[in-house]
């Protein structure tokens, strides 16, 4: 996927009274599927709202497709679809009527072919015609919200917890849909979610935030490279003696014995690799195996947030 930048936050600060939701946040939204991750209260939803002009920044500048997010929000909203975590519809309408209304509000017209296609994509084609939204299940509302976000072939779709109300099967389908839309229609996505393994499967790049600041941004590999700690599994004999030796080393972040192996978290991989054979040799112990534990998004998330 291309890495053309379609949106940028430049030192954006947003305060709500005494709370600073975004603290000089600078990030770039690239074409492709972007994952927006961070602990609760990191400022993810605020960033999404700010990019649609629902919030005015106190300082800094936010742009999408070259438009200022506050001053030109209408132009942005024509190119962007959004699914919020808090779903709200006109509950007295049927799903199809809701989509027709939102299509009219978005582009001034409604294409019944497009609407039917969207409903088919989110598997709501049966219920959408005659059932009022008020009677929909949480999963159906979520799927309707997704269909609404995809109205009018948006260039960017912002999804805030898109799979939170869905069962595993439907979650997999939604993720497939996101991937296929990205490939077939070149639709970009910014997905905010706490379900990291799902994001890891579909996202090209990640934006990791905490306390209103950007912690990391890039592909998973780039994020791992920037992570300060790395985990190893060490098998050596006698294990307790090796553990005692390693405990005294300053680059060791964490160490524990699990069954017959040592789980070590290190801050300096180079120094660890250099010192380990020396320490083993000095102690007269034997080293059977050293394995670097493969980092994933969850481990990157954990270590990055803990570093703050």
């Amino acid at each position, binding site marked *: 996927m291309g890495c053309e930048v379609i949106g940028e936050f430049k030192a954006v600060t947003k305060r709500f009274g005494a709370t600073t939701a975004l603290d000089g946040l600078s990030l770039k939204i690239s074409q492709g599927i972007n994952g927006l991750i961070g602990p609760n209260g990191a400022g993810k939803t605020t960033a999404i709202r700010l990019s649609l002009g629902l919030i005015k920044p106190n300082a800094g500048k936010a742009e999408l497709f070259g438009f200022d997010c506050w001053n030109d929000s*209408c132009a942005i909203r024509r190119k962007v679809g959004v699914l*919020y975590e*808090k779903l*709200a*519809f006109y509950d007295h*309408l049927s799903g199809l009527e809701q989509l027709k209304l939102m299509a009219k509000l978005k582009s*001034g017209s409604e294409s019944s072919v497009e609407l039917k296609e969207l409903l088919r994509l989110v598997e709501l084609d049966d219920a959408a015609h005659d059932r009022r939204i008020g009677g929909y299940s949480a999963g159906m509302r979520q799927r309707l919200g997704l269909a609404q976000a995809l109205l009018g072939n948006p260039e960017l779709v912002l999804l805030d917890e898109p799979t939170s109300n869905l069962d595993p099967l439907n979650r997999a389908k939604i993720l497939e849909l996101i991937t296929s839309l990205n490939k077939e229609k070149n639709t970009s996505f910014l997905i905010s979610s706490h379900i990291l393994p799902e994001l890891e499967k579909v996202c090209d790049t990640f934006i990791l935030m905490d306390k209103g600041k950007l912690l990391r941004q890039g592909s998973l590999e780039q994020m791992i490279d920037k992570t300060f700690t790395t985990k190893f599994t060490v098998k050596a004999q006698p294990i307790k003696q090796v553990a005692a030796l390693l405990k005294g080393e300053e680059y060791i972040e964490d160490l524990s014995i699990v069954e017959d192996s040592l789980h070590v978290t290190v801050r300096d991989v180079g120094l660890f690799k250099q010192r380990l054979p020396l320490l083993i040799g000095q102690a007269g112990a034997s080293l059977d195996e050293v394995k670097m534990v493969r980092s994933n998004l969850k481990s990157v998330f954990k270590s990055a947030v803990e570093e703050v």
Partner: protein
Amino acid sequence: MSVKMGLALLKAELEKVWSRPILEITVALMAVMTIFSVRPLTEIVSHSEFSTAFQSALTGSVSATVASLMLPWVIMCGVLMSLSFARDYEQGMMQSLLSVPVSRKLLFTVKFVAVILPLTLLSWFFTTFFVGITFYSSPWLVLQLSFFALPVSLLSLMFCGGISVLIALTIKRTIPAVLTALLANLFFWFPTTIRTQHALMEGAGYANYLCLTPYKGALVFLDKLLGIAPMGIDIVPVGGSSLADALEYSLPAGSFAVLLVFYAFIFAIPMFVYFYRRFEICE
């Protein structure tokens, strides 16, 4: 495109705001209040042979009926307007609507009109119909009333709507916003229950200024448009000046028209400007 969008949105908002049983409750409330406040026909008709007595009956009845009718307008307008803004904010509907290319000006206008327009029509109908059937012996009065009740209802409801939006967008929580809007509007409605000449004769000097409040002012304006003057305003209370000098009777209809227009826009315009220029979704 904007008109088309506006109409589509207005239709959806009207259906939402006036969904069952809101419309039924409003109509029932207005009907009950009117029926209880209209004087028995026999009393009016039997007095109609005496012009002064008829005039007195008119003053009491038109004012009392419209004042009583105002109570359900005020309640429903306060509740529905604060619900429309606070509940939509709290439940995320406003966020959803502001995330499509709908201008904030259009959204505010549509939400405001969706509450005000049906209430204005209902209040106009009830005022004309119920007061009309009471005073069928005076068709000219009924015709005048049907003409003047519409702008007076609209302007009064705009004040009610404006203050309710202010409360809803300040509190941003459905139940507290509705209760506060209700209390605020009842506070402004209360002066309509006080008969100025009675209060002044009892030495309550503050009563002189009650006609400057929004709803009482609207009633006085309506009375003046209909040419109704209460009996006995030439009486001079002990130690006081003539009742005819009181603001309610001495100020011309034009002054009350200006006052009513002022009240109609005092909150509506600042809230409109605030909504499209500064309002944020920051839950």
